[in-house]
């Protein structure tokens, strides 16, 4: 590792494990979160996202492994020593204190001067548009406003690292979208190192510089949203990202269908799985595989159509104006370069499988 500059606020996790009883909630996670980046910890419920975040915050003690913040080993440091802010899922506002007192709680604890406090409060309230609410109690605020107060607490602390645990999950869809944009803008404006936990892949894809997909306490894949979407490293990733997710179909099942024109199917062992995004599939009059419409779901701008192709199923996103009816037969085609193949036994993408793995699991 190169010399760390002291102002850096990168977060490194090295072989981090947390277990309760026999269960490893976080299992040997190694991860690098660059300074000033927006990193999202994504995964299904119970996969260890919150535990990982709480380990970084110092609210849980690691069973083994290391946590390094800004080049310093903080594995055994108290939460306060780690110099970070955290926004909780339920906001953790003090119900008996006014909005202003809630936001200033930490500054008072740390004996920040009065003038400085007032200045920071004013600025944060302006940024968040809650200047009119400062005298209210949390119970007199809507969910969205409470959320802003919790953000305000993180902003005035002026800590370089901010942790958020599903901060938007209690808001309605419209507000969630607004706050997504706002939080991302805020992070960039303040240059924060953000670690953000969510189970919502849309949030992850739209906000993150880096998405860390967790599965059963382990890192399934850590990559940029684009890479995660286009080149999922495993069937799990492919099925988790995207609405609807990537089609994963048995190659030999697809091959049962009648094919005209150029070959759409890659060279691969018989039992490999083919992955193709619904929006990459096109309806065609001339060449393609024969398919029959089994079900349709009208979404307004487009329609999701489920096709029977050979003995496999594929979902395609069909432009709204094209009429597809259940029972219709037509031809499907796609750019073969956009399809991926996965090893059925390991679930890994085939071109990332190392030769030695192939020998262990002969295809």
């Amino acid at each position, binding site marked *: 590792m190169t010399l760390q500059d002291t102002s850096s606020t990168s977060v490194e996790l090295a072989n981090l494990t947390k277990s309760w009883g026999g269960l490893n909630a976080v299992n040997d996670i190694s991860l690098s979160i660059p300074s000033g980046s927006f990193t999202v910890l994504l995964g299904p419920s119970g996969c260890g996202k919150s535990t990982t975040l709480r380990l970084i*915050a110092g609210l849980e003690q690691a069973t083994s492994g290391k946590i390094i913040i800004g080049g310093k080993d903080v594995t055994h440091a108290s*939460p*306060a020593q780690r110099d970070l802010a*955290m926004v909780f899922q339920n906001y*953790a506002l*003090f119900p*008996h204190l006014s909005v202003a007192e809630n936001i200033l709680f*930490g500054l008072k604890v740390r004996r920040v001067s009065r003038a400085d406090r007032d200045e920071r409060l004013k600025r944060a309230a302006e940024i968040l548009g809650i200047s009119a609410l400062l005298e209210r109690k949390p119970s007199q605020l809507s969910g969205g406003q409470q959320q802003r107060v919790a953000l305000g*607490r993180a902003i005035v602390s002026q800590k370089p690292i901010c942790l958020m645990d599903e901060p938007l999950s209690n808001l309605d869809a419209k507000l969630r979208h607004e706050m997504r944009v706002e939080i991302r803008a805020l992070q960039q404006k303040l240059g924060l190192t953000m670690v953000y936990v969510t189970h919502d892949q849309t949030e992850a894809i739209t906000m993150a510089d880096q998405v860390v997909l967790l599965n059963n306490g382990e890192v399934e894949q850590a990559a940029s949203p684009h890479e995660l979407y286009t080149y999922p490293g495993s069937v799990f990733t492919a099925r988790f990202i995207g609405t609807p997710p990537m089609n994963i179909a048995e190659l030999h099942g697809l091959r049962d269908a009648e094919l005209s024109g150029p070959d759409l199917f890659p060279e691969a062992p018989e039992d490999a799985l083919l992955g193709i995004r619904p929006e990459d599939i096109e309806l065609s009059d001339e060449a393609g595989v024969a398919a029959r419409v089994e079900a349709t779901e009208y979404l307004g701008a487009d329609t999701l159509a489920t096709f029977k192709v050979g003995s496999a199923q594929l979902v395609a996103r069909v432009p709204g104006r094209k009429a597809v009816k259940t029972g219709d037969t037509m031809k499907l085609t796609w750019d073969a370069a956009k399809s991926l193949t996965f090893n059925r036994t390991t679930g890994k993408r085939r071109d990332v499988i190392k030769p030695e793995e192939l020998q262990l699991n002969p295809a």
Partner: protein
Amino acid sequence: MTQRLQWIYGWLLLFPAMVMLMAFTHVPAVTTVINSFFSTPRGRREAKFVGLANYENLINDPTFWKVLTNNLWYALATIPASIFLSLLMALWVNDKLKGRSLVRMSFFAPTVLPLIAVANIWLFFYTPGFGLIDQIRMGFFGLPENSWLGSQETVLICMMVVTIWKEAGFFMIFYLAALQTIPPSLREAAAIEGASRSTFFWRVTFPLLMPTTLFVSINAVINSFRMVDHIFTMTGGGPDNASSLLLFYIYEVAFKFWDTAYAATLTVVLLVLLSLIALGQFFFMDRKVHYR
């Protein structure tokens, strides 16, 4: 028509409860006040209206002043002490410590036991010579034996200790329940901000417990005028009324001396006293209490 019918139904439904409440609460209370203006009927002599004569007697009755002073000291000592102790125990038990349910159980035990039984246990502690306290005093420190309940100086304090011991466990349950409604994330948020345990207690926990404190303190006040079972078992109010409390005195006047009019007068005083304290507490503390 239906409106009227509903109105009748409403009253019919209320009727049984109202009769009970009137017969056993309201009527006796009013009768007590009326009786305090009459003389005690004796034999063939009927009660006759005496105006404020009973109240004059009361003002000139040294025993009344004695038990009132006793009761005030008793309240002044037991209320804050039992509240403080119960809060302390609740905070301790609320922490994640090993064998916590056992500790909780043992703190709560005095509350489950009837006061008479508790009094018997303490009677043994206080027994001169071979009681627990004297055994420790004599065995470890070589001090002479002491009659804790026989001395005017110590007897009231002994009664206070029993009450505090009995009440703290009860109040602890309320504090514990209130503590468990405080989300753990508040403590975590404060920890990340660098707040120490004591800062967190004074800035967050204590204010959030204020409604419970109000509730508990009203109960403590009422209990300090109401719980006299242990006086019966342990001292009978003696020696020389040194451990007698207002309610115990009322009992004596009414059922030992059979002076019902004077007992009614004392009861009126007790009721007025309790109402004033409860009202005062509500108005004084309401402003400082945060209700969620």
